[in-house]
């Protein structure tokens, strides 16, 4: 697309500015530098004159560049550092593809994009100030980085001091805007021309979408945004996304031999299924190997309806692999922690010992090693594997499955089939144990998290539903009890364990689900919601259908548990653990908060028998396209 061949396009768009100009009309096309020079000569007319232009600003071209990347939405809290882009997006770009999403906090913008990407498989565009906006956004960016999720961030900044006026423009300017988040983004650039912006913008998208997927940052300079386009022969480079890295063939063959030879292999799935195809690929391998698949639910990797699904029990992230003679780890976050145990409480010289049997073989397939960084310690403890394959698991699995098939002899097929029956029966028994555990405290008040999960599931199980929040803090009851068989039915966890993620991620995921007509539901911790509750308004303002069921235990409960345990460790009073951790006295009225942000809401609900009817009423509103929230007072976990 050559911008200079289309000079008349939208030529009257800013005509009103020309008409509104006063004494500076004759200087309209000369830009601020010439303007300043004129002002020196004729201070009586120039010093306070408005700079107007009927020429296209650079932000129009930037808009074309960003539209070419196929973004559906741009989430932002408004900021003067990208005002040019915002004006162009709306008046020049028509506020379509991307559509502007108004956020009340930059952390919400990024976390929305995080949740959106997990459903849609591609990034949402984010804009923020290069300084204060990015500072707000940084924790959410860290979560997305740790969770290997692509987020596309455009930062406004005025690098040239001569272009800044006073007040906020100096304190909102920075030499190297992306420096603050460089440790936890994959790539960034600060283009100094429009052609540079075009190339870097396309490159950034390509990098973000290459596994390991991670956030990228492009700085949109204020001068480039707001000055008229003067560069000749501007064009937008063609985007060609990179084929994902696949494990080296001989290593994949070696892995297949080990898997076929193993008597009881176990697959541990971390962030495997980037797309629905990843889930299919893992199912095909499990079907061939007939071995247990432990899905840590960092992604929706494996259907819970499959007989090989082994993720029962409370601690989904750290499955029991003690009976395995081979463990295949697919993009597992803390694989060492699954293979080994250590002293329960921190201390120097923590004892560790393997959870696995002596002689158990370990294989890893991971793309993370392609982009390790050193400052933030998200790489976890070193795994002493027998075979380590660098590659994207989703893309590597088909070759591995084919290699396994070719190696299977008739004898091994018989043994594997027998193993499959045994594994399926063990998994069935484990699932039954979970159901019996869910019955304990069924009629309790505060409401048990198992009861809450099942009351919700009863109302949605016949719909095309999607659980767009993290269920870990609710003892993973949905993961343990619901039937998940579609990739979009669960979006996993925060990544960096940064609280404040869940509510905006749920709104972002629900936004992605909206056009597919899916019913989005979210189990929402109270502590998490309080970081930036304004995202409830964003959901209302943009008519994002989403049912939020509060898991309101009235505390930052994880920390409360830590404090009680430490007090006991030191022979001190554990009853003080509420100080600094409880969210009570007064109890926070989440229903009133949600109503204030324009949502349908009910609560607090403490009687378990009242929950089902309340969910039904709320879902009626959600099906009309409106977000709703139920404040449910729950057991701690």
């Amino acid at each position, binding site marked *: 697309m050559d911008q200079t061949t289309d000079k008349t396009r939208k030529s009257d768009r800013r005509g009103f500015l020309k008409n509104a100009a006063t004494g500076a009309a004759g200087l309209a096309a000369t830009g601020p530098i010439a303007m300043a020079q004129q002002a020196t000569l004729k201070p009586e007319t120039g010093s306070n004159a408005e700079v107007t232009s009927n020429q296209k600003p650079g932000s129009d071209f930037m808009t074309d560049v960003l539209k070419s990347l196929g973004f559906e939405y741009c989430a932002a809290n408004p900021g003067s550092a990208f005002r040019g882009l915002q004006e162009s997006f709306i008046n020049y770009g028509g506020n379509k593809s991307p559509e502007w999403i108004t956020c009340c906090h930059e952390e919400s913008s990024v976390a929305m994009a995080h949740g959106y990407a997990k459903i849609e498989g591609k990034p949402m565009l984010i804009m923020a100030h290069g300084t204060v906006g990015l500072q707000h956004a940084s924790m959410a960016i860290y979560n997305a980085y740790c969770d290997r999720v692509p987020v596309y961030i455009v930062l406004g900044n005025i690098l040239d001091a001569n272009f800044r006026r006073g007040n906020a423009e100096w304190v909102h300017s920075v030499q190297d805007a992306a420096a603050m988040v460089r440790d936890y983004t994959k790539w960034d650039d600060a283009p100094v021309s429009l052609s540079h912006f075009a190339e870097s913008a396309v490159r950034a998208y390509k990098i973000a979408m290459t596994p390991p997927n991670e956030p990228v940052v492009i700085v949109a300079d204020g001068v480039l945004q707001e000055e008229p386009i003067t560069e000749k022969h501007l064009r937008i480079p063609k985007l060609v996304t990179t084929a994902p890295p696949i494990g080296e063939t001989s290593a994949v063959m070696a892995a297949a031999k080990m898997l076929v030879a193993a008597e009881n292999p176990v697959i541990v799935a971390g962030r495997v299924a980037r797309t629905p195809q990843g889930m299919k690929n893992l199912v095909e391998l499990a079907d061939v190997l007939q071995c247990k698949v432990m899905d840590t639910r960092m992604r929706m990797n494996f259907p819970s309806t499959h007989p090989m699904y082994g993720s029962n029990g409370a601690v989904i992230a750290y499955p029991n692999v003690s009976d395995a003679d081979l463990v295949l780890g697919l993009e597992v976050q803390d694989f060492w922690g699954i293979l080994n145990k250590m002293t329960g409480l921190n201390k120097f010289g923590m004892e560790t010992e393997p959870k696995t049997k002596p002689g158990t073989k370990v294989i890893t397939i991971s793309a993370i090693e392609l982009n390790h960084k050193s400052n933030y310690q998200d790489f976890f403890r070193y795994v002493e594997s027998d075979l380590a394959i660098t590659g994207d698991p989703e893309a590597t699995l088909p070759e591995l499955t084919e290699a396994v098939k070719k190696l299977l002899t008739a004898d091994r097929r018989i043994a594997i089939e027998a193993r499959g029956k045994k594994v399926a029966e063990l998994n069935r028994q484990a699932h039954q144990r979970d*159901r019996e555990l869910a019955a*304990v*405290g069924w009629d*309790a008040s505060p409401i*048990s998290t198992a009861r809450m999960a099942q009351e919700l599931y009863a109302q949605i199980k016949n719909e095309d539903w999607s659980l767009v929040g993290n269920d870990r803090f609710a003892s*993973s009851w949905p993961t343990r009890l619901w039937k998940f068989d579609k990739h979009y039915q669960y979006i996993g966890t925060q990544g960096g364990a940064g609280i404040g993620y869940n509510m905006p991620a749920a709104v972002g995921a629900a936004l992605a689900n909206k056009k597919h007509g899916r019913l989005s539901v979210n189990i929402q911790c109270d502590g998490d919601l309080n970081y930036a509750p304004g995202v409830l308004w964003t959901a209302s303002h943009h008519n994002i259908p989403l049912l939020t069921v509060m898991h309101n235990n009235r505390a930052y409960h994880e920390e409360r548990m830590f404090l009680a345990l430490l*007090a*006991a460790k030191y022979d001190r*009073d554990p009853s003080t653990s509420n100080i600094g951790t409880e969210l009570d006295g007064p109890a926070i009225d989440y229903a009133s908060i949600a109503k204030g942000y324009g949502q349908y809401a009910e609560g607090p609900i403490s009687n378990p028998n009242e929950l089902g009817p309340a969910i039904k009423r709320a879902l009626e509103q959600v099906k009309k396209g409106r977000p709703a929230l139920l404040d449910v007072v729950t057991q701690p976990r």
Partner: protein
Amino acid sequence: MTKYLILISLLASLLTTSAFAQTKAGDVTNGKRLYEKDGCYQCHGYVGQGGTAGPRLAQIRFPLAGFIAFVRNPPSGGMPPFRAKVLSDQELTDIYAYIKTIPEPKAAKDIPLLAQ
């Protein structure tokens, strides 16, 4: 796990013949108060249902002596020892009495939302 059970049994027998023998019958009301005040519910739930952070206590199978021995010397995991300075044998006896009052749950098959 077997070695822990042996250890617990050993400690239980020691406790039975020492200070533990001096405790009175458990006070359910005080046990419930302590269960909540000192944070047992935080990991095990208000009705001992268990969860991500701690195992189920409802319908506990340990005898009282085994329960006290476990709390004093829990096997490796997230729970530290709760020594007598924090919870006396009598207080643990009261907590145990409360836990024992937690009613038996229905079978999952008898709860429509859990019957599959």
